[in-house]
């Protein structure tokens, strides 16, 4: 019989070995599955994990893909640290995008790039407002935020669908559910590199990551507010004893995470799509939940987790194109990876003891 015996202290070795080992185990079991499915395992391995690094423009696409994941994941980190379970970042992403996009379409001829900053602020407000609904229901009526935030995702999806088919549909779109294109001022440009030109889709929007990661690290580790969030998450009664207001913290983290999801939406659409359409998110809000946990609710970890997940997603695209492997393999790899990481985390705190069956 296997029993888990608690360790006296969290094992330092396992903190390092755990994540590395879990990536190797993910690769191993992934290959096993593909072999049984009849694909060439080595080629699958190459396509999923290495092909995204094969060309410099592909590498820059990893960062483009990771950008929304990291922004949303950082916001979710604040919620999860406070034990507030915001599962609806996808909806907040959509509503932030929709509000900022609708605003941009009011000014069809605006050209100044300063306009982007206004859109980001409006996107933040849009996402935060959508997150305010579960926040206020939880703090005033004690309604479970998991259910409310999740269900509001579907409301948001249908709402943007309605908007682009109805009020904001471009009359010139030949019946497609698309809005008019954004004005020039609402478009985030690609970064030109002298002598090379553009590197894939690499755009100015990812610069926000360079700001966000250090600021959020300082926030959670070096500020009173960050401390309040940590205490509330580990011991709500102690937070009360310290005089921290639980409801204020809950509302704050929900607004911040909703707002960041909205910002991610604005950047994603302004840089890569340039108009409103029924689908703007492609599941970033849900994938970011995994990113937040893979990154161990730590900003720097989340940066790496975002890059890993983005790699697998792009790799799965490549595998689909070149080998005909269904794209759902991304989900498979994410699942296996998360499973092994959580196992590794358990092994940090427990050691396994084999005992004879009695």
């Amino acid at each position, binding site marked *: 019989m296997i029993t888990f*015996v*608690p*360790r*006296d202290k969290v094992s330092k070795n396992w903190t390092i070995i755990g994540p590395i080992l879990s990536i190797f185990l993910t690769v191993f079991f992934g290959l096993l599955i593909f072999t049984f499915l009849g694909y060439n395992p080595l080629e699958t391995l190459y396509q999923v994990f290495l092909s995204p690094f094969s060309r410099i423009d592909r590498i820059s696409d990893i960062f483009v893909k990771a950008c929304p994941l990291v922004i949303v994941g950082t916001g979710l980190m604040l919620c999860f640290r406070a034990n507030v379970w915001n599962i609806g970042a996808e909806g907040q992403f959509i509503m932030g995008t929709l509000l900022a996009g609708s605003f941009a379409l009011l000014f069809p001829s605006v050209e100044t790039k300063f306009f982007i900053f206004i859109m980001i602020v409006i996107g933040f407000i849009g996402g935060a407002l959508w997150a305010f609904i579960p926040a206020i229901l939880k703090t005033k009526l004690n309604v479970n935020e998991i259910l409310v935030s999740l269900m509001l995702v579907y409301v948001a999806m249908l709402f943007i669908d309605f908007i682009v088919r109805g009020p904001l549909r471009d009359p010139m779109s030949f019946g497609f559910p698309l809005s008019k294109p954004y004005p020039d001022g609402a478009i985030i440009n690609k970064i030109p590199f002298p002598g090379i030109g553009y590197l894939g889709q690499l755009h100015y929007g990812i610069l926000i990551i360079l700001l966000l990661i250090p600021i959020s690290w300082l926030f959670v*580790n*070096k*500020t*009173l*507010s*960050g*401390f309040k969030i*940590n*205490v509330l998450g*580990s*011991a709500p*009664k*102690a937070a*009360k*004893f*310290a*005089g921290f207001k639980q409801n204020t913290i809950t509302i704050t983290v929900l607004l911040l995470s909703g707002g960041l999801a909205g910002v991610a939406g604005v950047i994603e659409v302004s840089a890569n799509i340039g108009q409103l359409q029924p689908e703007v998110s492609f599941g970033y809000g849900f994938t970011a939940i995994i990113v937040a946990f893979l990154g161990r609710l730590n900003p720097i970890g989340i940066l790496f987790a975002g890059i890993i997940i983005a790699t697998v997603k792009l790799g799965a695209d490549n595998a689909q194109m070149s080998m005909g492997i269904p794209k759902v393999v991304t989900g498979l790899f994410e699942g296996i990876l998360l499973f092994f990481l959580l196992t590794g985390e358990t092994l940090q705190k427990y050691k396994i003891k084999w005992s004879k069956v*009695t």
Partner: protein
Amino acid sequence: MAIKKEPEILLKASKINKSFGNFIANKDIDISIAKGEIHALLGENGAGKSTLVKIFYGVLKPDTGTIEINNSEVYISSPNSARKNGIGMVFQHFSLFPALTVAENILIALDKKIKFKDLISEISKLSKEWELFVDPLKRVSELSVGEQQRVEIIRCLMQNPKLLIMDEPTSVLTPQEISNLFKILKRLASSGCSILYISHKLEEIIELADQVTILKSGESIATIDAKKTNTKFLAETMVGKEITDLKKTNSISVTKDTALELNGLNKDKETDFGISLKNINLKVNYGEILGVAGIAGNGQVELMEILSGETLCEKDDQILLENKPVGFKSITERRQLGIETIPEERTLHATVPNLTIAENTFLTYFFKYPKANDIISNLLNNPHNSKIESEKIIKDNDVRCPETNPLANQLSGGNLQKFILGRSLANNPKVAIFSQPTWGVDIGAATSIRQKLLNLSNSGKAVILISQDLEEIFELSDKICVMNDGTLSKILPVAQITAEDVGLLMGGKLDASNQVETTE
């Protein structure tokens, strides 16, 4: 009391070992219990008493060791097989379903099939025979704690046990209920049923037990004839060192200056399981210790929260500090004004277990650092600021740490309590309010904590001590009041109230409280 000729051994356990990870809960324990004997198991918290009896009752399995009943080895795999071997147990925390009736609760635990009508008559018969009066058709949620315990005992008696295990049964009872329980246990023993009685209360053991086995750090260090020993010897054997007496000189320091006052305080319960506070009046002067006795769960938690400021009053003037209303002040504001509370729950309430001692210091210190009205420096106020204070608290209060700035969960219960006390006292409070300050700490630490309370009142502070340990209340307090079902009795000087009066008040005997008032 059983007249012993040649003691016939009922249960014999040899070389019982049990460990949880690196923690050894039981080490080579030998114990034998004679038929009809009341055998006490004595030891401090964490000495391994509960682990041992859980092994006897099949809740835990020993790593090694054998158990014999009536000279034949048995393997107790589950509580079910323990019951088949004639072992019954009454837990410290009762295992009754509050929404079911007494009879239904007993039926659930029965292994044999029985008609409901026969069950009722059997319960009535047993409760009459053993004077365990309880109405079988009443819901458990309507019963007092003492009555619930009777249900548990009846439930065990239904199985005709040869051995009844009782885990700290008196911690929830009033003195009157305790003496009733003892009468029943003695009758049970003289009828041939052995009793294994777990306690850390020495007087009880001397009064009740025939034999006493003392556990220390998981080992059985002595088995003594309880009739030929005294409390001092038991205490010193249990702790393994001499116990210093408290230096009590406090009543000199009592003043007539009121520090804290509660006026007609009412507070409705916030959940179904809470207690509403009803018309609480309380006054504590500088230099005195006010003891609030009462069985846990009678509103102490709610009173504590409203005193600390974790919940606010309905009216500002329901709490007065030096005649100034503070009922609307938050816990942080009250700390600044000089009211410090030390809650009962050390981990997860007074401290956060997975944060360091410096961070835990910051928890109740953070308001000291920000420069006034400066948002940026307030925002950048962080636990690092508390390093020096935390080191001072550790040094001044003799908190033993395994490393510099350890996590709170690396400290033992007693050391953590010393840290929490030191942290509060470092704020130099005017009023200090303690809830169960020595609960679950070893005798050495308890003595030092009690001495600290006395020193506080000697130095002119007002102290409120909420405790269910009557001995502690009488030992430390200058004045005493009793909490029962959300109400507080009149406050009386310790010289004018006896343990019996307090017991009656704890049990909620209203006529008795009138009697007490007239004796003033």
